[in-house]
């Protein structure tokens, strides 16, 4: 333990005295989180100028689907495709193939008919409507791809609502007219040409009440995370900063390899694992400080600049699990880089560039939901993508620990993979007399 503390103390002391390194580790992600969040906060609100594809899932097959499709397609910028089932359609929305999914649930027509019969009775009887709310469970759901702007959402929802109302009114009118003719036939059969008590003029539409079918924008399901700019950028850039630990960490290992310190350490009565663990803990503590700083900026500084405050939530254990996994992955990658790079310059070039690429793929710079389909698939191979997904599940969906286990395991697996490769590299160098 004394040896471990000595190593941690030494590493922290060296880092503390490396002011430029600290600047990279703390100031860079802090500036990035401020700038990117402020930029995206506005950009997200302005998005929306493109052609739109909508997937319509008509589970009821009652004709309403075709009616809605016709109404929507009357706009030249909207293309409606019919989907087989809502899960598949949602997958296609998530992949970016469609911008929205409209679901007409099974039984809609049946429920509607019941409501219409009731309404037509009211209209014909002149009674006050008994209900002014829609029939429970009769609704049409709309799911939007998160990158879809507010204007488009309103337009689509409005158009669907209009189509539904038109269809509902048309159906209602048919029902009322049918009832009228039935009544008239009944009266004529009874020998009365004009039956007193029956108003043969057009029905009073004010008695129809609110539409029976509601058009409801539904919440996104698990699998697609739609954070605000703040909830997206604070964990994203904090993680980006954490991964930048590879630069000083790899540099520290390379210096030790190159100046004989590693050789001196390898003949100490201390296992190399202890030396490495000490190093990982020291750099891990720095990563924790980075995370704390970025979260604090998101919580207290960003709101002063007009954004929402970062909401940390209460899933402390879950956050700890993801955070520790991210730190393990980042520091282990630094160890790998420091072990395989042949020079400090090599590590200095490759380290940051690889982190920037992994960050871009992983959705740090542009949220995954706003990426094209291919890039969304690629985001699944980025450790930064795993970390970000884990964080977003917590900070957007308030997910519990079991929901982020997959991401944590992937990150830890990546960490073990890096450490394993680093060990192999070191052994190879030792066999070759280079360490």
């Amino acid at each position, binding site marked *: 333990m*004394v*040896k471990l*503390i*000595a*190593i941690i*103390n*030494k590493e922290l*002391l*060296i880092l503390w*005295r*490396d002011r430029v390194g600290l600047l990279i580790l703390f100031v860079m992600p802090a500036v990035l989180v401020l700038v990117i969040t402020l930029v995206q906060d506005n950009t997200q609100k302005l998005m929306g100028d493109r052609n739109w594809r909508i997937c319509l899932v008509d589970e009821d097959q009652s004709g309403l689907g075709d009616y809605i499709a016709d109404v929507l397609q009357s706009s030249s910028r909207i293309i409606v495709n019919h989907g087989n089932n809502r899960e598949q359609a949602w997958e296609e929305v998530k992949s970016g193939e469609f911008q929205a999914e409209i679901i007409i649930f099974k039984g809609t027509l049946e429920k509607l008919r019941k409501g219409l019969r009731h309404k037509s009775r009211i209209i014909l009887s002149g009674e006050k409507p008994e209900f002014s709310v829609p029939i429970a469970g009769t609704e049409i759901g709309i799911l939007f791809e998160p990158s879809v702007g507010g204007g488009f959402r309103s337009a689509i929802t409005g158009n669907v609502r209009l189509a539904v109302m038109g269809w509902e009114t048309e159906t209602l009118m048919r029902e009322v007219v049918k009832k009228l003719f039935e009544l008239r036939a009944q009266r004529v059969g009874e020998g009365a040409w004009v039956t007193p008590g029956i108003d043969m003029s057009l029905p009073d539409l004010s008695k129809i009440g609110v539409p029976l079918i509601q058009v409801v924008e539904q919440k996104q399901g698990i699998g697609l995370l739609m954070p605000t700019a703040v909830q997206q950028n604070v964990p994203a850039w904090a993680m980006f900063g954490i991964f930048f630990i590879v630069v000083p960490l790899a540099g520290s290992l390379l210096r030790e390899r*190159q*100046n*004989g*310190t590693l*050789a*001196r*350490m*390898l*003949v*100490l*009565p*201390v296992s190399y694992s202890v030396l490495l663990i000490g190093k990982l803990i020291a750099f891990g503590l720095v990563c924790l400080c980075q995370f704390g700083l970025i979260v604090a900026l998101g919580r207290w500084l960003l709101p002063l600049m007009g954004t929402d405050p970062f909401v940390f939530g209460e899933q402390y254990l879950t956050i700890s699990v993801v955070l520790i996994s991210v730190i393990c992955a980042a520091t282990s990658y630094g160890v790998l880089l420091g072990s395989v790079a042949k020079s400090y310059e090599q590590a200095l070039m490759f380290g940051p560039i690889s982190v920037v690429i992994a960050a871009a793929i992983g959705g740090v710079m542009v949220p995954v939901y706003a990426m094209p389909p291919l890039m969304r698939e690629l985001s699944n191979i980025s450790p930064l993508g795993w970390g970000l997904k884990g964080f977003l599940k917590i900070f957007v969906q308030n997910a519990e620990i079991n929901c982020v286990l997959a991401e944590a395991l992937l990150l830890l697996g990546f960490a073990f993979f890096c450490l394993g490769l680093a060990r192999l590299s070191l052994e190879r160098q*030792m*066999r*070759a*007399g280079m*360490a």
Partner: protein
Amino acid sequence: MYHNSEIILKVAGLTKNYPGHTTPALQGLDLEIRRGEILGLLGPNGAGKTTAVSMMSTLLVPSSGSVKICNCDTSDRSKVRKIRRQIGLIPQDIALYQQLSARENLEFWGSLYGLQGKEKKKRIDFCLDFVGLTKKSDERTAFFSGGMKRRLNIAAALMHQPLLLYLDEPTVGIDTQSRSMILERLSRLRSQGAAMVYTTHYMEEVEELCDRVMILDQGTVIADGAPADLVRTHQCGNLQELYLSLTGRQLRD
């Protein structure tokens, strides 16, 4: 007091074949070093000196042969830590942390050798004084001169009072004063019973310091004995002449 008959290091048939190389870097090295004895290991670049030191200091696993330190075989993994407590390695490079002060460097290395509290502080003070750096103890190593860094490099290997020291060209690139001090301090350590394996390209250092000299070339020993005896036997004027006559004058890159 110590018995100078006590064998500290015993090497038998030490051989190293590096992967991808057709000829061994070191072949069949045999040697013994007793307490208070300094062995000078000479040879041109690529002769196998560093490979020999690396294997003798447990850094490198031999292809064949054995290394025994204080009667413990280095191939016995259960005894490696015990063996490592007895050895000190002074690499050719300045194996120190430039951002730390002299004292902080010694604190770090001392801690890794298991020193704590007053004992550690006592050893730090002793080592700083031993290499003449007490007044500079709180200055960062980065601001030290080459000679000061070399002296601190030695001090770091002395923290745990090793019985056996491996010194790989410890006086490269320093001024005459620092070199003189280092040689004087090493002589003092010898008188206290430390055994040393000393590699260098400076023949006058070997003549001044070493009890025995071993000249390596292309992985094999080509001369072994006391410097004066070797010079006399080979009828040379001095060690430098002997060395060049044995290893040739052609450049070794």
